[in-house]
């Protein structure tokens, strides 16, 4: 083999190594890694807001302030924060509360539905399994609430259901929320269906919390 040919062989080896190096430094995979990190941060931010939403019940527990109003205020605050970051925070909240239940006596349960879906509810129906009573409303605007008081009377521990149906221009949805009733207990039951959307990621979580107030 001539010396000149050795130069060419070395050149081919070096070029192959350069190409392999370029492939391993693919811009696409680097961008993907960055996107992964940014998405991870958005997941943590969503967890932050969800955690604070639940915590609001505990924070408001001994206050004379209205627990429901505080949750609504925090949700609007979160919406404002994410709006300023060109992210979309939406959801629907069903917040129920009843005072200490006495055996065989009528108990009023206040139910508030908060529409934060970013669109009008064309129809909203809330019905209570205790007696089948219901409340039907049309045209509930974004960031609006609808409240209704249901009455129940029981002599023992029982689980009732609150069935919430809502319809928007895009979807129909039905939620079945368990209302655990115990004699001698006052409870707050929150149902949350929350969604955070950015140009990178869409996260949604649906959860309920029942908290004994006294």
């Amino acid at each position: 083999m001539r010396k000149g040919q050795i130069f060419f062989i070395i050149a081919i080896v070096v070029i192959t190594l350069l190409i392999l190096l370029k492939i391993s430094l693919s811009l696409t995979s680097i961008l993907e890694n960055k996107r992964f990190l940014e998405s991870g941060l958005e997941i943590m931010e969503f967890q932050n807001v969800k955690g604070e939403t639940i915590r609001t019940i505990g924070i408001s527990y001994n206050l004379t302030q209205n627990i429901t109003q505080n949750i609504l205020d925090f949700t609007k605050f979160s919406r404002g924060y994410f709006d300023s970051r060109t992210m979309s925070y939406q959801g629907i909240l069903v917040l129920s509360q009843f005072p200490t239940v006495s055996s065989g006596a009528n108990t009023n349960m206040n139910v508030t539905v908060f529409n934060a879906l970013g669109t009008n509810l064309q129809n909203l129906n809330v019905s209570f399994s205790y007696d089948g009573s219901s409340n039907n409303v049309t045209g509930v605007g974004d960031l609006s609430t609808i409240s209704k008081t249901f009455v129940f009377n029981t002599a023992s521990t029982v689980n009732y259901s609150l069935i919430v149906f809502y319809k928007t221009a895009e979807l129909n949805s039905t939620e079945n929320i368990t209302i655990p009733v115990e004699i001698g207990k006052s409870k707050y039951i929150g149902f949350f269906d929350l969604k955070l959307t950015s140009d990178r990621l869409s996260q949604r979580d649906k959860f309920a919390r029942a908290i004994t107030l006294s």
Partner: protein
Amino acid sequence: MKGLLKTFEAIMAILAILIIFVIFFLSSQSLPEFETVNMRVRGFQALKLLDDNGELRKFVITNDTVTIKNKLSQILSPSTNFDVNICQLNCTSLGIQADKLTTVSYLIAGDYNNFALRQIILYMW
């Protein structure tokens, strides 16, 4: 004549490597900035750690940014410059002028028996 040919072949080999290098590595695409996103993740984790340890919200409610900064300085890297702003939604800028300035926010709804909507903005550079 033989020596000249060898020199020519060597030059050709070098040129081939240079051309490949220019085509693959000197393109106009710039690599994305990783430092700021990493800083934001670390900043958020630091705020969450303080909160999980019960060392954040009581100082946020009293607007005690000095204590929060002292606690953050024990968590964040010494090479990270940072400042803290506590506000609600309409927050005034701290007017920091720095390259690679980035921020991350943490929301709280208050502390036990004290409902208070606050945003903690951590500036890092």
